């Protein structure tokens, strides 16, 4: 242990999560706000260096690496911990708060981890706590989506761990989490990359996200939208900056997310696809690898946490007030929820990179870096996708919920109203931060870890953005009838495991259970067939030996000469015990031969 007193911000969240059930009433609300606030204060007072090193078995683990890169990510994560809790303040279910805090603790733990062991520990903590934010919705659909989420993240965890072990072997027993040699990754490096990309929701490893975020609780999805993917972006920046594969992958993510979002009927699934799209910009920036591009990726992750959670708060407010999140069941709500409209619109303009809003000062860093490095094709594709972002998150989302024809039932209309004070306060705070960062961008630029020079408010950039956005608006209104919502769902990669699992189950049923069909003899299952074959194995064995000896010698002994009936061996358990002993000795012999070879 180090000598200085160093408090890990995750420790505050974890202790808070343990103590929360002890509080009631107003004290509980105060405690709910106090813990994230304290953690935020701890994070902004972090000193650069390596803290919290402990020895575990023969390895040193470090829980607190603080430098410019981890500081900016820890800053926004801790801030989001506070905003998320404020938004969820009226939630009575403690499970949701505890799960959210453990999840935030996991995310901060990953960001401050100095080695792969600590990273993996917190990485899994995130997966296993966030699933409760899906389950807390308590619907059959959320239960199923939660299990799928857990299975996929379990798989990702195993891939990551395998990669870590292989990488440690290749790196001479070194677990430290430092930039990889991206020209020679090795099997361990590639597996770690796959583990990270699964959490970054890179296709085809992305289907867990719209699935789970669409089914989470209103406040649970707000928290989830901020942490898992952005933690993965941090891990990618730390480990894989400059890996050429990430640029085309990022551009593909950007376009994939935008196009799939167009097909969505559920507002929160639409936003989940836009997370894929926005994370795509960051992944592309990491792939470009220049100072401007990687700083752009950090900055974009920073503002993405803000505006994406703001959008999820807006749609979460609709869901928690009306119980609806599908466009085909909403519409014309501007009289009922006008302030929610304003906050959501601010989130939408921020994600669309409208001047004076947060995304404007960050997205252009990555696109400009792509132009500067002469990736012209990719740079134009990144620009093209901006149009889709503006179309769905700002124009389509606000139009189909607040304007146009009302598709609400009477009950929905009756329940619709601006949400309670704490939810509105969380939205107002986030909306303020979106505009603050967009207007006073040196606040963000000064925190960025790599050197660059860039001025987002040049006349050229302003003119480009205004023209681009205005003609997207023109296109939207010209094609308005094509945006009419329909109650459909879109197939995605989860089709393979949702339908695949069904056929797997059928296959297993076919093999291992008896099918009773009326009027027919029951078909013996595979299990029964194998059973019959292995029944009295001694009998088969004896017959085989007799046949062998007959073939070898031409002499057929009478069965009566064999004194003992093998069935009695079986009854006395002599046969299975003998077989087990034989197998144990056999494998030990093989092992020892292999060992001495």
């Amino acid at each position, binding site marked *: 242990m180090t000598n200085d007193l160093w408090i890990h911000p995750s420790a505050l969240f974890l202790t808070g999560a343990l103590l929360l059930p002890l509080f009631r009433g107003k004290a509980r609300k105060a405690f709910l706000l106090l813990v994230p606030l304290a953690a935020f204060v701890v994070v902004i007072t972090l000193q650069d260096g390596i803290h919290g090193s402990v020895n575990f078995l023969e390895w040193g683990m470090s829980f607190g690496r603080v430098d410019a890169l981890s500081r900016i990510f820890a800053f926004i994560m801790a801030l989001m911990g506070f905003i998320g809790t404020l938004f969820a303040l009226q939630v009575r279910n403690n499970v949701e708060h505890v799960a959210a805090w453990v999840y935030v603790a996991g995310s901060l733990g990953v960001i401050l981890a100095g080695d792969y062991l600590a990273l993996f520990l917190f990485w899994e903590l995130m997966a296993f706590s966030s699933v409760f934010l899906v389950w807390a919705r308590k619907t059959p659909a959320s239960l199923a989506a939660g299990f799928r989420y857990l299975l996929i993240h379990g798989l990702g965890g195993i891939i990551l761990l395998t990669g870590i072990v292989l990488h440690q072997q290749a790196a001479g027993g070194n677990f430290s989490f430092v930039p990889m040699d991206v020209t020679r990754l090795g099997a361990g490096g590639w597996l770690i990359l796959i583990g990270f990309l699964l959490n970054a929701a890179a296709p085809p490893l992305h289907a867990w996200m719209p699935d789970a975020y669409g089914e989470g609780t209103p406040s649970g999805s707000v928290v989830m939208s901020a942490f898992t993917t952005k933690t993965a972006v941090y891990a990618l920046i730390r480990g894989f900056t400059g890996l050429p594969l990430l640029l085309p992958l990022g551009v593909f993510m950007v376009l994939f997310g935008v196009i799939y979002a*167009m097909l969505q009927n559920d507002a929160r699934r639409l936003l989940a696809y836009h997370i894929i799209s926005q994370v795509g910009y960051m992944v592309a920036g990491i792939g470009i690898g220049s100072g401007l591009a990687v700083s752009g990726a950090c900055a974009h992750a920073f503002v993405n946490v803000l505006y994406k959670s703001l959008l999820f708060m807006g749609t979460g407010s609709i869901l928690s007030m009306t119980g609806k999140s599908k466009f085909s069941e909403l519409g014309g709500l501007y009289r009922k929820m006008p302030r929610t*409209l304003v906050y959501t619109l601010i989130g939408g303009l921020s994600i669309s990179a409208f001047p004076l809003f947060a995304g404007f000062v960050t997205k252009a860093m990555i696109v400009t870096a792509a132009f500067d490095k002469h990736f012209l094709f990719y740079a134009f594709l990144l620009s093209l996708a901006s149009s889709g972002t503006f*179309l769905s998150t700002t124009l389509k989302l606000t139009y189909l919920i607040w304007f146009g024809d009302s598709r609400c039932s009477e009950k929905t209309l009756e329940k619709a109203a601006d949400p309670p004070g704490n939810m509105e306060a969380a939205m107002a705070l986030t909306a303020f931060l979106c505009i603050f960062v967009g207007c006073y961008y040196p606040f963000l630029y000064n925190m960025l870890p790599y050197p660059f020079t860039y001025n987002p408010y040049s006349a050229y950039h302003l003119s480009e953005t205004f023209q681009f956005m205005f003609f997207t608006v023109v*296109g939207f209104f010209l094609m308005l009838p094509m945006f009419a919502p329909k109650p*459909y*769902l879109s197939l995605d990669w989860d089709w393979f495991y*949702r339908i695949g699992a069904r056929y797997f189950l059928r296959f297993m049923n076919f093999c291992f259970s008896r099918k009773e069909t009326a009027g027919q003899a029951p078909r013996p299952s595979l299990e029964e067939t194998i059973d019959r074959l292995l029944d009295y194995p001694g009998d088969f064995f004896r017959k085989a030996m007799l046949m062998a000896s007959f073939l070898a010698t031409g002499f057929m002994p009478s069965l009566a000469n064999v004194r003992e009936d093998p069935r009695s061996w079986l009854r006395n358990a002599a046969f299975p015990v003998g077989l087990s002993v034989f197998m144990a000795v056999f494998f030990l012999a093989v092992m020892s031969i292999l060992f001495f070879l």
Partner: protein
Amino acid sequence: MTLVRLLEAMGKWRGNGLPVGLIVAGLLLIFEALFVNHDQAHTAMEKIPGFWSIFGFLSCVVIVFFSKWLAHVGILKPEDYYDE
């Protein structure tokens, strides 16, 4: 509710979409012609006046039609598709 009244007042402008759109487009082009220094452009085609207007409009059309095409080839399914 002043906010609602403001929104309703804005709604009345909807009928004048065409003239308002033309005026805004004109202002954008004038702004580009007078104030924008094209040194920051990375390719020659960006120097065409109104390039980003055309690019924005085409992007929007491409994205909408591509997603419609995906829906057409069978990516969209009824909501009970996964129910057994």
